[in-house]
């Protein structure tokens, strides 16, 4: 019984981080067909931003979080305008450009901060015990943030004019354009929301992790796995896929402690198995070119 509780709680916590990252990635892919490999690099930039504001400038964590989200979102939109938009029609070029961008961010941070492992204080310090399992308040915050973001995105996409524009663009860019929707602006706004979500993830997760210039790589692999598992471009798929892989990881740690380092590989194996049965992923979205 104790083991089950441990697995459930760990799975929910692991899954929340992946969900936060994967939703943002999935959103921009679903709307603009942009595979933004630099998504987790923006998450890393937010983490460094929080480090600078809290540890170097001595300001409060909440201010640091807000500054990180605003600055990184702006940077994401600038990146879209000057780097991604000009080559947007060439998907492979976008893919390569965003890989290059992520590596540029990594190298800049490596040169400025070196490879020293850094950390930031928790937004809410301490832990609570639930059914005998100790859970950080920060982890609870991550879990709540994942649910809240999902709720807000659902409201944004389903209840607002902007959401309607985003959905229309996601369904058929050309027709949306003919209907008077400024497709380029929608894509840019979506990029802003997507990168903002990466920054928010960085902000809530960074106190639980260490800040270093390669911290974008490991979540990138898991995020891609979640998105592929859930179905490219499907927000619901990303959300559910994230928790499936989160639980897969927790199962490995608790049932095979000697193989705890394999938790990432096992999660990726789960992804492959699902894809063998459903190549489009759990909730795959078909695009007009594929219909």
């Amino acid at each position, binding site marked *: 019984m*104790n*083991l089950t509780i*441990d697995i459930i*709680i*760990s799975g929910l*916590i*692991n899954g929340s981080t992946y969900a936060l990252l994967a939703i943002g990635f999935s959103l921009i892919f679903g709307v603009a067909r942009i595979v933004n490999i630099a998504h987790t690099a923006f998450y890393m930039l937010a983490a460094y931003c929080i480090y600078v504001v809290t*540890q170097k400038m001595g300001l409060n964590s909440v201010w640091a979080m807000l500054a990180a989200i605003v600055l990184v979102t702006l940077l994401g939109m600038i990146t879209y305008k000057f780097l991604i938009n000009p080559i947007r029609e060439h998907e492979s070029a976008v893919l390569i450009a965003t890989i290059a961008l992520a590596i540029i961010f990594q190298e800049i941070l*490596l*040169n400025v901060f*070196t*490879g*020293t*492992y*850094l*950390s*930031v*204080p*928790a937004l809410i310090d*301490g*832990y609570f015990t639930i059914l005998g*399992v*100790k*859970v*950080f308040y920060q*982890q609870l915050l991550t879990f709540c943030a994942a649910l809240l973001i999902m709720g807000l995105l659902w409201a944004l996409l389903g209840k607002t004019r902007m959401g309607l524009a985003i959905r229309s663009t996601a369904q058929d860019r050309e027709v949306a354009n003919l209907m008077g929707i400024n497709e380029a602006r929608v894509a840019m706004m979506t990029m802003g929301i997507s990168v903002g979500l990466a920054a928010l993830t960085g902000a809530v997760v960074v106190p*639980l*992790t*260490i800040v*270093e210039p*390669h*911290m974008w790589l*490991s979540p990138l692999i898991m995020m891609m796995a979640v998105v592929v598992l859930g179905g490219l471009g499907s927000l619901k798929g990303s959300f559910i896929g994230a928790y499936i892989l989160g639980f897969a*990881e*927790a199962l490995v*740690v*608790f049932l095979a*402690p*000697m*193989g*705890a*380092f394999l*938790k*990432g590989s096992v999660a990726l194996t789960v992804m492959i198995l699902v894809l063998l049965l459903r190549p489009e992923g759990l909730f795959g979205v078909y695009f007009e070119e594929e219909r």
Partner: protein
Amino acid sequence: MNKFSKRILFLALAFLFTLSFCTILFAEEIKIGVIGPMKFVQGKGHWNGAVLAAEQINARGGIKVGAERMKIKLIQADSNEFLSITDATNAMERLMTKDKVDFVVGGFRSEAVLPMQDIAMEHHKIFIDCGAAHPELCLRVARDYKTYKYFFRGTPFNSKYLVQAAFIHVGTVAYMMKKYLNIPKIKIAIVAEKALWADPMIPASQGFFPKMGMEVVGVWRPSPVATDVTAELSAIQRSGAHIIFTVFSSSVGIPFARQAGELKIPAIQVGINVEAQKDGFWRATQGKGNYVICSNTYARGVQDNELTAPFVYAYIRKYGEVPTYTADTYAAIMYALKPTIEAAGTLDSDRLVSILENRVYLTPSGTVKYMKDAEGRPLHDLTFGPGFLTGIATQWQNGRLVGVWPYHWKMTPQSPEVTYKGIVPMKLPPWMYKAYKK
């Protein structure tokens, strides 16, 4: 002064200037390659230790090689070995073929040092390893002396002795727990990162702890770069472990210590945690790494011998932090290479090897004596034990990294008691008293 004299004076000055410039330019130098992951703390330690040694030696006129004095020129090589072993071998190849160094010091990951070793040996250059612990590095010397004789271990001692020292630290903590917390049977969890150097430590630990009267409750192998270990910690807490034996050299040492401290897991961490050796650990764990005990080489105020304090404080004055073990490039240059070159009066590698392997010499961390294997073949590995190298154990106590071992330590019941100057008693976390004290 007439025009002709002025011209003569000008020519004389120009000649003198050119002569002195050429003397500086073409003066004989000893080139020492310093190889390590330079963008990381380990590489910085390599470089800083070497720079300190070179500055001190050059300030005294350099190294006496036969009749002349030669200054040291350091060549930095970024091995980037955490990320790419190919980068590491390329860096070593560059040192050999482009920079044409006379000696190499450094190296950190065993996985990278093994191929780096092959390159240095191929060029017959002495390579003093200042970071990798795998025994294979020195076993190669015994097995194929002709090829590998140019390799010497500088620091740390091999993983067999690292684990032996760590077992002694665990035994000391277990004794304290029995004494102060009245725990009759100590339960121990083994947590080792998944890395080559840590692999031999798992069976050794599983075999040895029961002989020490402890119960091994489980083995966990997180990734060396894991950032969240709360699941592992939950499982460890459920196992009822009193001691967590850590085997970490990578970044996982930080989140593990931070999260265990924050969750107040009622078990003390003892073992190897390279990140916990650094001054920055307290800040990196946001102060949650309190009471973590780890094997170490240097700490403020701790003196193994008369060379320890001058080195440690010179290092702190120059770099603002306590040296970690990779800074033993200092000892490699100052106490291994310099006296050997001066004794040989040449830079010939073969001649130097024959002198160095037979020397017994003092360094800031203890006395170096190179071992031989059971068949009497040279290993160029470091001797462990009282009177030689023992290392120290340090513990984070309320923001200070203090030396806690050897403290009234006897290697055998007949051995003399060893306590280094500046060592203080270990402390158990208060939450352990709360959890176990009846």
